[in-house]
């Protein structure tokens, strides 16, 4: 379970997150929507400690992410993350990309790590691209590679930071399908997304962020069909 309490994040003078309280239960799929600069991506970075926070707390299964005594490298193994830029390691094949972290972080043997890599690449539909370098893969394939790479660490939670925003329109579907597959498998997911269709179909809950505040959170039917907040209504009217 992810427990976020009174989370504040500043970038210099910029107050990006203004007191976020949010719980995400095991098995839940939460989509986070909102305009650019609303702080939704920053929230993900604060959850896995890629950004420091100024106030409040984030707990993963009871462990305080930002406590000095916490081993973040160990904690991050529980939290897979997929970025807007797919960030494939260009010097490694697809299989090596996926096998690297299990090998050096978890200390698996090379054979074991490569076996995990093969399994996960097949899982995301890249079984025929094992030996390819990222330069020979399309954006959509590289993003699926990034998902496989995160899954290879056997995370309990997956964080998606606008995973489809940098893709060509015709490649968005394949990545969303992979994300749907994970959701069906019961993965706990927080998806920062601009894909309203995906948010509506796949999410258990949808949160709308506005200027660093979580304006509204609820089941997709509420957010999309009967939003309570005026800001949510305006935002959705603009994206439709």
């Amino acid at each position, binding site marked *: 379970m992810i427990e976020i309490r009174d989370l504040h994040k500043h970038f210099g003078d910029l107050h990006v997150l203004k007191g976020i309280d949010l719980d995400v239960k095991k098995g839940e799929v939460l989509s986070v929507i909102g305009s650019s600069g609303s702080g939704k991506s920053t929230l993900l970075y604060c959850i896995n400690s890629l950004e420091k926070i100024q106030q409040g707390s984030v707990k993963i299964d009871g462990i305080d992410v930002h406590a000095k005594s916490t081993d973040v*490298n160990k904690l*991050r*193994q529980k939290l897979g993350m997929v970025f807007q830029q797919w960030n494939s390691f260009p010097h490694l094949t697809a299989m090596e990309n996926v096998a690297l*972290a299990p090998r050096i*972080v978890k200390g698996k043997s090379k054979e074991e790590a490569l076996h995990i890599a093969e399994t996960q690449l097949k899982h995301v539909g890249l079984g025929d691209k094992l030996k390819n370098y990222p330069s020979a893969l399309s954006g959509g394939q590289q993003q699926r590679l990034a998902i496989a790479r995160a899954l290879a660490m056997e995370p309990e939670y997956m964080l998606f930071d606008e995973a489809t925003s940098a893709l060509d329109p015709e490649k968005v579907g394949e990545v969303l399908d992979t994300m749907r597959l994970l959701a069906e498998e019961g993965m706990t997911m927080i998806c920062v997304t601009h894909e309203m269709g995906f948010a509506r179909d796949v999410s258990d809950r949808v949160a709308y962020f506005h200027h660093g505040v979580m304006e509204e959170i609820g089941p997709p039917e509420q957010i999309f069909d009967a939003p309570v907040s005026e800001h949510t209504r305006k935002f959705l009217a603009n994206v439709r």
Partner: protein
Amino acid sequence: MQETITFFSGFGASDLWFLGDAALKTLWISLLSISIGTVLGVIFGWMLHEGKWMAAATIGSILDIFRSVPLIIQLVLFYNFAPIVGLSLDPFGSGVVILTIYTAALVSNVARGGIEAVPVSMRKASRSLGMSYWQDLFHIVLPIGGRAVFPAWIGVVLGVMKDSALVSVLGYVELLKASQILITRTQEPFLILALAGAFYFALSYPISRYAAKFEQRWAQ
């Protein structure tokens, strides 16, 4: 009849050996300086990039001096003034020390460029997988950044190897000094300088060819 004494004698096969041996010395002094200088340069480059410490400011300006002052002046100054502080080195030792620092100064900038060539988001991605700072540095930044600046580093290597000729001013008999000795004896500057040039070429060319091969392989 008056006897003439000749100081000069023609170029012979043994002189070729002499040049070859000198070329090996050039290779040796370069190899030593470039290897140690590269390791130091990478460490300095990393410090400059991290820039957390006061050290970054001091190292940065010291390296600036070594980058900006002509090598020949550095060599003469070090060789003649180091003994004053009790550091008495022979020409070879002095040459290695100065060439090493000179290489480190050049490589530090190359290395910093390499670190900065790796996108921040890629480093965040590797950290998000649970890699530690050092794992990210060795498994991601080193290979990716290293490839990005490999051509620049090869440029430094070839440059330092040719610049090692300047150690001849201290009296170390490497390729250039050996040529000067032979020219004085044979009075055949054209032939001998052409030969020395050919030796330098023979040392440099394989390196650039080999480097090009690597780059080609990485480009795939």
